[in-house]
């Protein structure tokens, strides 16, 4: 549904390309987790995907249309929740009335439901300016989900949320997700969102280190205490002996540990690449 075709991009010539010849294909019906180190280009990639930045070469297509043209039919079907944002001095109700007409599938009923999930329901006359940062984020996200755009991209959505709200956020995603939608969550807080993802995309220095579904990951990599003869892709020392990410044996299925997977992809990119590009 969203195709990134051989894009190159740099913020300035001296620093060199942040992306060069970078391609990635995202399909509807999936919740993607976009992981990468600080400075790996996650936010930049998001801005390129939503048409806010222009690649030096290459293109990003949404339903076959270049997002950089910012056509109304594209912009009304993509919603971006950036990591930081400002909200105007308006009530929630005024904000919704002002912004919802841009999104043909916006649903007031959904808005109410999502505000309820965040325990922000009830008073739509609250002024956005009187809200805390976390509360602003909740209203913004409730609106984002209520637009029912087919593409919803979130940059560090759980940053600034308190502990109960992280669970509420997961509920928002699992409630709002449908087969025709594509969600992408860029984050460092992998523990917050691991269970709600279908798909993991790890990028580093303009490369895709891993782009795989959970079922695929589970059949290929196991996360467990190391045994003799294991050739681990990543080792984590623990008080109970070494744990690691290892090639899964036939029929072995363990819970996917995104932190270990991420570290394995960074430390052992060739081995991970080989494991996921060749058929088992």
């Amino acid at each position, binding site marked *: 549904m969203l195709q990134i075709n051989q894009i190159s991009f740099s913020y300035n010539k001296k620093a060199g390309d942040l992306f060069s010849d970078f391609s990635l294909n995202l399909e509807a019906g999936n919740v993607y987790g976009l992981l990468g180190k600080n400075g790996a280009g996650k936010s930049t990639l998001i801005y390129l995907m939503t048409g806010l930045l222009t690649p030096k070469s290459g293109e990003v297509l949404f339903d076959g249309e270049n997002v950089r043209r910012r056509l109304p039919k594209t912009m009304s079907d993509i919603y971006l929740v950036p990591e930081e944002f400002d909200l105007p001095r308006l009530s929630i109700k005024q904000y919704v009335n002002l912004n919802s007409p841009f999104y043909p599938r916006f649903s007031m009923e959904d808005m109410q439901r999502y505000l309820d999930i965040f325990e922000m329901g009830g008073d739509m006359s609250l002024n956005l300016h009187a809200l805390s940062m976390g509360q602003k984020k909740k209203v913004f996200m409730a609106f984002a989900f209520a637009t029912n755009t087919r593409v919803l991209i979130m940059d560090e959505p759980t940053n600034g949320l308190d502990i109960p709200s992280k669970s509420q956020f*997961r509920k928002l995603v*699992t409630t709002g997700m449908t087969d025709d939608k594509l969600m992408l969550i860029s984050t460092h807080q992998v523990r917050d969102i691991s*269970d*709600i993802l279908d798909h993991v995309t790890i990028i580093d220095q303009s490369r895709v280190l891993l782009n795989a579904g*959970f*079922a695929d990951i589970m059949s290929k990599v196991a996360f467990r205490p190391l045994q003799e003869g294991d050739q681990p892709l990543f080792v984590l020392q623990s008080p109970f002996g070494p744990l690691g990410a290892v090639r899964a044996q036939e029929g072995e*299925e363990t*819970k996917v540990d995104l932190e270990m997977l991420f570290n394995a992809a960074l430390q052992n990119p060739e081995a991970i690449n080989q494991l996921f590009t060749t058929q088992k």
Partner: protein
Amino acid sequence: MNFKDNKAIYLQIADRIGDQILSGSLSPEGKVPSVRELAAEIEVNANTVARTYDHLQQSGIIFTKRGLGYFVSPDAKEVIVSLRRDQLMKGEMDYFLGQLKAVGITPVELQGLYQDYLNK
């Protein structure tokens, strides 16, 4: 829902549904929540829940009625008990017996302990 680290999540969800069937909160031939409902309730990806349902269906614990969703099989309890028995015998029992041997508990003592447990 809180998950343990040592087992695939889709299997942990299957265990939870198994518990609900054994405890009677899901009854034989009763409707199982839809994939999306359960996913939202336990805050887990819908494809993971779909995988759980596939697994339960293959084991004969639930079945589909076309267009109506998933239902608990009439003999689900028996199936779960027999599967769990197999699992226990293959896995934990071996470890447990090893521990008994290591600390020197005799078969007679074990019998007494088990009897006491059943009488509680």
